[in-house]
């Protein structure tokens, strides 16, 4: 036990001595979560729209007003002809063009078919889709309003038709703020990058500096060396997690509905596998450069894209969905969002927790086995 303690102390001393590492460890998580937390936002509001109103009637003006009042669209310019809109879209200054053709008002007044044209830059498909949805509901409501007025003016009897009214009740994120969904994801991402790099570099560095031999000739057992090296990193990881969670909750107002101790506990399970992966990488390579490349390309980037943190797993083709089951971050993503947004407890999250635990143990064992061979 005393030997283990020595190794831990040595490791902390080494971290402290590397002056540039201290800010990386303590300041970086806060800066990152702040900067990226503000960046992650997919709410579709104030879509820059160019207006071509060839009708210039009271109806066309009213329709435009409805568009602006909805809060989803912002008129940033106007033109005379529909062809002018292309310029705005090509340079990405605007995403939408709203064209109201001549005779729009007259057609509405005489209940002939009237149409508004919407020219959409479809390259950003996700936001284009949402904007299109908003535009069609604004148009639909306006159309219904005009029809109602016309009917009343004509004194026609109202048509009694039963209608289904959709009453949505949104759980966990009632205002549909994308930030609530993505900020916990950034938190998980930072935690993963930090802990994995620390452990990957920790071992390779000793190899490169040549102090690994010294460690081997000391009477430290391999497991003591391993635990002694990894434990400080785990402590740092949990500490970073607490810092970043504070920013998430107090800075971004993301609700923490579940239990924080539970989250910390499950975070340690996750750290098991990131530290293990880092260690595994370090046993497979010769120098720090290779260690970093392998850590980034083979572990971090896949984990970011395939974990469901940003891109929903359900949208992926089945073959790739199968791959995601092998990614620890996938389970941690479920956990972190479960605890933060859904207020889930262990009763719901135990399958993820168990999987993370088993994965962590398996990866660590594998890494330890390879690690020992090198020591012999």
């Amino acid at each position, binding site marked *: 036990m005393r030997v283990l303690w020595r190794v831990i102390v040595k490791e902390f001393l080494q971290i402290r001595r590397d002056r540039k590492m201290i800010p990386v460890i303590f300041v970086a998580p806060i800066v990152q979560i702040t900067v990226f937390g503000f960046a992650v936002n997919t709410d579709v509001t104030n879509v820059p729209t160019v207006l071509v109103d060839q009708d210039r009637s009271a109806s066309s003006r009213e329709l435009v007003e409805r568009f602006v009042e909805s809060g989803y669209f912002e008129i940033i310019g106007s033109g005379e002809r529909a062809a002018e809109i292309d310029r705005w879209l090509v340079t990405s200054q605007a995403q939408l063009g709203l064209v109201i053709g001549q005779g729009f008002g007259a057609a509405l007044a005489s209940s002939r078919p009237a149409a508004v044209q919407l020219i959409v830059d479809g390259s950003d498909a996700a936001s284009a889709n949402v904007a299109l949805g908003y535009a069609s509901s604004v148009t639909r409501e306006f159309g219904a309003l005009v029809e109602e007025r016309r009917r009343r003016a004509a004194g026609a009897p109202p048509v009694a038709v*039963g209608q289904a009214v959709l009453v949505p009740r949104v759980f966990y994120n009632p205002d549909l703020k994308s930030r609530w969904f993505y900020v916990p994801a950034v938190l998980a991402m930072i935690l993963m990058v930090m802990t994995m790099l620390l452990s990957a570099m920790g071992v390779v560095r000793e190899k490169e500096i040549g102090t690994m031999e010294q460690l081997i000739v000391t009477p430290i057992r391999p497991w003591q060396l391993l635990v002694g090296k990894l434990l400080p990193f785990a402590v740092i990881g949990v500490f970073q997690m607490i810092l970043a969670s504070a920013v998430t909750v107090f800075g971004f107002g993301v609700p923490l509905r579940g239990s924080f101790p539970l989250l910390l506990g499950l975070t340690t399970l996750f750290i098991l596998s990131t530290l293990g992966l880092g260690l595994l990488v370090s046993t497979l390579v010769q120098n720090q450069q290779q260690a970093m490349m392998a850590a980034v390309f083979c572990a971090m980037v896949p984990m970011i894209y395939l974990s469901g943190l940003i891109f929903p797993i359900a949208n992926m083709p089945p073959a790739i969905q199968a791959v995601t089951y092998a990614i620890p971050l996938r389970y941690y993503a479920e956990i972190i969002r479960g605890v933060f947004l859904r207020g889930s407890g262990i009763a719901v999250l135990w399958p993820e927790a168990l999987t993370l635990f088993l994965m962590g143990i398996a990866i660590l064992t594998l890494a330890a086995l390879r690690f020992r061979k090198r020591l012999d």
Partner: protein
Amino acid sequence: MKRLRAVVLKEVRQVRRDPFSLMMLIALPAFMLVLYGFALNFDVRHVRLAVQDRDMSAASRELVASFTHSSYFDLVATPAAGEDLDALLERRTAWAVLVIPRGYGRDLAAGRASPVQFLLDGADSTTAQTVLGYARALVSEQNASLVAGALARQGRRAEPPLALDPRILFNPELESTQFLVPGLIGFLLMLTAVLSTALSVVREKERGTMEQLRVAPLRTWELILGKTIPYLGISLVATLIILLAARALFGVEIRGPHLDLLVAVLLYLFGALGFGLLISTIANTQAFAFQAGLIASMLPAILLSGFIFQIRIMPVWLQVVTYLVPARYFLVILRGIILKGEGLATYWPQVGALVLYGVATVALASARLARREA
């Protein structure tokens, strides 16, 4: 010129001697494109829907059918009355629950409005918003056909509704892949270019061979150019492979002039390599170079470049920060050339910014290198 060639040759040899890193730089970006190109997708389909039909009338069955027959929803559960609907959402069994109240059919027949509840897991707000849009559209279609039916029974015809006639440019199928793959290219190039140069200089420092280079009769610019050219070549090969893969697998075709694309890629790589050099002049250890390179290039290229998250809706101070991220400019150009079929001339402000960025980083890096030599 001869000295420059010597440096290039030396660097190429060094790269060749490390086939592991070379493979990482060339093959991995293409591999990642293939893997992630399929994974990056915001197109919402097959929403897991649970339906609780408390009415069991012809009308309610018709509404349910309109949901389940659309390609958007998959029926995963039909909870009986009294079952815990919240648990379905919390356990992620279903993303949305449609609850049709008792008396729905009777209300409709009597010409009354009938509320239909739609419980939705809002945690993933983007998906939730799309799902809500689908549900609204399906219900209003259902209502339109109810109105048409009622009018027809009275011998009247429905008046033509106000129509929205959307024309979708550049990506008519609204496939998110078309938008995301160019973003991915920008990300992958940034990552490989910055890291490879940053590490190559720092490695020389760590091994002590930097001193040898310094005492060699080399000018600063020869050293810098010599160290940059091989990685520029590698990155270009990687780009070519990526573009071919994007075309073959995702149907992302380059609609604009190819030469303009090449120029844009060269400008971008120039800036990225310059940035890598700059990091390497600041860092003394590979560990630090790597951390700095990663934090300053990888995460911003994902989060601050407009790759996934629109810059327009960020807070102003953060928008100012994004002006320092070269991927921001590159993505506008890349998407313009690939998706919109435009040439470089359209994007002259972005091109100017890339040039400025490249010149600034290389100048800063050489200034720092030169000062150390003095």
